[in-house]
């Protein structure tokens, strides 16, 4: 498969040629093979997983466990270390609930960062509130475009239980330098949880190699269907944590002898069709020669950035003008145009067939730090092309004409 024909794999984009989809950070479009895999499950293998004897259910079981292997290959870990959740949010809640239950008491503290999506912020905020632990929020240095230097060392102590940090900001595309943070947190005896919701669509997660204790991502931002998330945990943590949900398929014996992970954390019927779709999505990415596609994506991101910065009245808050090449290639860019409310801007762009997102992007702590209530965001996927830069360029011109400087 050649990168230039990638769009053709996506039926929605193929049918709506005029559509310029720049909202992959919200959810990616789905390739035909993924839609087919979901369909095929219901056509050929529909039956409930686990505890079945007949052939169909054996098939369904095999499909789900094959998917777990594919995901483990993607994440660089063992299949048993992969828990299927509903999404990233459920994964974060599972961790915050379990860690809160087992490890947090009044007088402890946990650290989250100001660049987190609410999914990796609110669960920790609530865990802190329930236990009486202190929530410490690592500030973002908006001039340097990264987390405040030296803050972690000053705030980590022997009562720090968790460091929860994103692998890529869903607003600025910033990637925190994780290895030194992980080392410092571990030295203090804290667990490290990373949010790979955005980063996993732009390169394989290396969770085990990275040395995090737990991490998660979601299938629908990874060209898979909605309804399936991925949670990784070290064996020790998986053994220790209690389940968030209890119910069918997760108990060895009553009252509470839980099955080992991953079953312990997968109570109830999973979305097997979505899991099959995610399996197919990862296979699709490998078949594309993903690494090569990602290189193209970086060049495209730079083109978008250059085009945006050439516009009058346009700012990219929280991202310094002088960027290292790697940072300049971030596949997510949030901007503002002076004199045009982000909602009006997104609406004019929509009228030109350009799909972008406007608002606080579920990242209020970061938006507050930037002093903004809303920003307009573009985010890239494997199907974007240089012609999309031109389309956005022309649509922005139209918006600036409609809303001239007052």
């Amino acid at each position, binding site marked *: 498969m050649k990168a230039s024909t990638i769009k053709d794999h996506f039926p929605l984009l193929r049918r709506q040629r005029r559509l310029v989809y720049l909202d992959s950070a919200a959810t990616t479009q789905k390739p035909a093979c993924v839609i087919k895999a979901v369909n095929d499950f219901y056509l050929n293998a529909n039956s409930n997983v686990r505890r079945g004897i007949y052939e169909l259910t054996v098939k369904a079981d095999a499909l789900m466990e094959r998917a777990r292997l594919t995901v483990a290959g993607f994440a660089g870990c063992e299949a048993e270390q992969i828990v299927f959740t509903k999404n990233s949010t459920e994964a974060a809640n599972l961790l915050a609930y379990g860690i809160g239950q087992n490890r947090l008491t009044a007088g402890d503290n946990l650290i989250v960062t100001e660049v987190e999506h609410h999914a990796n912020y609110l669960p920790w905020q609530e865990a802190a509130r329930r236990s009486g632990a202190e929530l410490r929020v690592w500030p973002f240095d908006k001039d340097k475009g990264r987390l405040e230097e030296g803050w972690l060392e000053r705030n980590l102590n022997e009562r720090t239980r968790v460091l929860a940090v994103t692998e890529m900001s869903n607003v600025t595309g910033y990637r925190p330098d994780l290895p030194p943070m992980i080392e410092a947190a571990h030295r203090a005896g804290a667990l490290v949880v990373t949010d790979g919701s955005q980063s996993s669509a732009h390169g394989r997660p290396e969770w085990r190699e990275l040395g995090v204790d737990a991490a998660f991502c979601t299938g629908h931002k990874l060209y898979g269907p909605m309804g399936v998330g991925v949670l990784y945990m070290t064996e020790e943590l998986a053994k220790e944590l209690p389940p968030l949900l209890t119910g069918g398929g997760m108990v060895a014996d009553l009252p509470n002898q839980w099955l080992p992970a991953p079953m312990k954390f997968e109570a109830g019927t999973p979305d097997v069709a979505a899991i099959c779709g995610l399996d197919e999505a990862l296979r699709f990415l490998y078949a594309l020669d993903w690494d090569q596609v990602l290189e193209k994506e970086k060049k495209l991101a730079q083109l978008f950035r250059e085009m945006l910065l050439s516009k009058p009245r346009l700012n990219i808050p929280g991202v310094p003008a002088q960027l290292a090449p790697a940072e300049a290639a971030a596949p997510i860019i949030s901007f503002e145009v002076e004199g045009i*409310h*982000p*909602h009006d801007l997104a*609406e*004019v762009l929509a009228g030109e067939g350009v799909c972008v997102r406007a*608002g*606080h992007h579920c990242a209020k702590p970061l938006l507050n730090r930037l002093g903004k*209530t*809303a920003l307009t965001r573009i985010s890239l996927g494997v199907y974007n092309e240089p012609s999309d830069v031109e389309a956005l360029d022309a649509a922005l011109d139209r918006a600036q004409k*409609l809303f001239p400087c007052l």
Partner: protein
Amino acid sequence: MDIYGEIVLDHFRHPRKAKLLEGADWQATDSNPLCGDRVTVTLNTDQNGIITDFGFEGDGCAISVASTSLLGEKLPGRKLDELLKMPKEEVLDLLGIPISPGRIKCALLGYSCIKKALINAKRKE
């Protein structure tokens, strides 16, 4: 139809009655924290419950500013009781453009704020 037609853009660029009344009888503020839109309205009423004057100040997108301006223009001379019963469709009709579900809140921010002020006025009546 283009949502940013002449009427909307005109009322956004030159909002009518865009000045708070000094010492107004009634005042209310409303905001949409999700997108940062904010509006304050003031109005005066006479002893018969008729609006005699209106003024507002707002900070927001074109749709929210234009809809408040369009609605505000229609208020003087109308009865409090009648306005309290005004359906939101009337505001959307004033805008005269198709409003997508995602923008309904913007279009109705001024309306809900004016309702707040009217309810305050009614209580005191």
